[in-house]
């Protein structure tokens, strides 16, 4: 009988913080921009330049630590991690090894077997590296330091996960918390959230962990899931062949669905950490800690509770809406503009979800504004457009965030409220469809649907169906 294996996974998650400026200089963190246009002597490692810490970085790190039940380190230091690579302009990265800002936390995830807590070993602050672009024409690489010095927190979990599903659940939960805090947008595809997977396997029932490998370059949940499966299989195969797993860093190639060892002779992995003499300690007083605690925004659980109290909408809808900070923001803002909560919820739950699915988008990718959704709802409330038209207009809002009032005006989609004109159109429809009229009069009440449709067609869709119905019933009496 073949052996049963258990996968043991811990994650190192890097999150780019949503500060306006870099961690140690006043350069913008804005994404994109021509190479090296967001740089200065500090973030390009010019001789003589010195780092000065961005206070907001500390506050975001504290906020994440508090939201993930960590203990906040009140005496903090920064250390230098020394290694040579061109994306690292000083050839050392300023990070925290000895005194990370948060320790000993954890978050709860849902698994098929119930709730499970994933421990967080530590969270530390550090700077991001620049970007290397490989030049195909010249067989060289080009260095862009725009990302160099963008603030990161690294969230190191305990080896508490046992499957790809748990990993994804943990990441989704972590992402939601950080998004709720406004500490990062956590976009895997833009690299503002990145996960390195530490994975080992062991026989079921074994008490010791196996030798682990670290996998880098995972930029989607799907890639993470595939990498976990791939690495698990690779390690089991080695063990089955009686070989050893080597502790090493591997790079996942998602196209080939295979990981490669990144070791080289020049890569000694001896980072010679020591406290950065250019930076002074960060001391977090009880007072400061309490201030940050008091400023903590409402997280998902609290929001759910509040929605239940304030809005008369199904719990399922509340779960979906609060499952994305961005969606919840749109929901609340639309309501604050005067829209009925039930109607807002309806637009989000039905049409928005349908279009997201159709475009293979995440709720975070929603581009439309609450203002335009509120205007649309107002147009329907005023019966200025009917529901068919409204859906058509909403699609435009979803795609291009158009102003529905101007759009309806421009395209002439307004419902005709002139009863006289409608009445004469209906009279015409009755005259042209004697068969349907007869069916109706003979008791086939459904026949009225056909007549409504014919009227709507004549009105080019710009009529209120209930009004048509009312007039038809009256005329057919």
């Amino acid at each position, binding site marked *: 009988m073949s052996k049963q294996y258990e996968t043991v996974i811990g994650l190192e998650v890097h999150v780019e913080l949503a500060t306006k*400026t870099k961690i140690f200089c006043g350069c913008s963190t804005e994404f994109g921009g021509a190479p090296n246009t*967001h*740089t*200065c002597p500090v973030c390009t490692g010019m001789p003589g330049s010195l780092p000065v810490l*961005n206070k907001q970085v500390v506050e975001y790190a504290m906020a994440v630590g508090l939201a993930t039940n960590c203990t906040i380190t009140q005496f903090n230091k920064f250390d230098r991690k020394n290694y040579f690579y061109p994306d690292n302009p000083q050839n050392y990265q300023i990070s925290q090894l000895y005194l990370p800002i948060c320790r000993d936390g954890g978050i709860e995830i849902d698994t098929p077997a119930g709730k499970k807590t994933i421990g967080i070993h530590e969270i530390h602050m550090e700077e991001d590296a620049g970007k290397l672009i490989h*030049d195909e024409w010249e067989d060289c690489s080009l260095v862009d330091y725009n990302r160099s010095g963008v603030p990161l927190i690294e969230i190191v979990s305990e080896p508490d996960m046992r499957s790809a599903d748990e990993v994804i659940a943990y990441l989704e939960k972590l992402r939601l918390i950080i998004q709720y805090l406004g500490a990062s947008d956590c976009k895997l595809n833009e690299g503002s959230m990145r996960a390195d997977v530490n994975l080992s396997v062991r026989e079921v029932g074994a008490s010791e962990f196996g030798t682990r490998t670290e996998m880098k370059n995972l930029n989607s949940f799907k890639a993470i899931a595939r990498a976990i499966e791939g690495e698990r299989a690779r390690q089991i195969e080695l063990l089955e062949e009686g070989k050893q797993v080597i502790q090493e860093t591997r790079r996942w190639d998602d196209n080939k669905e295979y990981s490669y060892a990144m070791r080289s002779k020049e890569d*000694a992995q001896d980072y010679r950490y020591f406290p950065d003499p250019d930076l*002074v*300690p960060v*001391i977090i007083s009880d007072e400061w800690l309490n201030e940050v605690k008091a400023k903590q925004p409402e997280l998902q659980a609290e929001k759910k509770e509040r929605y239940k109290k304030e809005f008369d909408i199904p719990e399922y809808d509340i779960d979906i809406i609060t499952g994305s900070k961005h969606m919840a923001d749109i929901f609340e803002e639309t309501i604050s503009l005067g829209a009925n909560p039930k109607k807002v919820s309806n637009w989000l739950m039905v049409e928005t979800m349908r279009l997201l699915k159709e475009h293979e988008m995440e709720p975070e990718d929603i581009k439309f504004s609450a203002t335009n959704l509120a205007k649309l709802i107002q147009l329907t409330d005023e019966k200025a457009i009917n529901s068919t038209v409204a859906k058509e207009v909403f699609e435009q809002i979803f795609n291009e965030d158009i102003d529905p009032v101007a759009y309806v005006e421009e395209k002439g989609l307004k419902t005709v409220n002139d009863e006289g004109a409608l009445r004469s159109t209906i009279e015409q429809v009755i005259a042209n469809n004697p068969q349907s009229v007869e069916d109706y009069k003979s008791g086939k009440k459904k026949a009225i649907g056909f007549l409504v449709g014919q009227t709507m067609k004549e009105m080019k869709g710009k009529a209120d169906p209930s009004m048509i119905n009312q007039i038809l019933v009256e005329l057919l009496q």
Partner: protein
Amino acid sequence: MANIISDETIEYVGILAKLELSEEEKEQAKKDMGSMLDYIDMLNQLDTSEVEPMSHVFSVNNVFREDVVTNGDDREDIIKNAPAQKEGSFKVPKTVD
């Protein structure tokens, strides 16, 4: 000499420090490092078990910047000292993936 520095150690430190020493330099470096470490070992005469390591002499702490953009686009200046550049980027030998 109490500290004998091996060839492997010199080789290893060379990798860490990105220095490539000639055979002659290596021999000299082994000697120099050995005698420096012998000298430094003098510190072991001191009982420091009750002493906290002191990185900063003064208790200056919590020096911060506010999160306000102060730098504009200085690319031309930043890149002008580069030994090799291309299209506004620093040019380096191909890095392996």
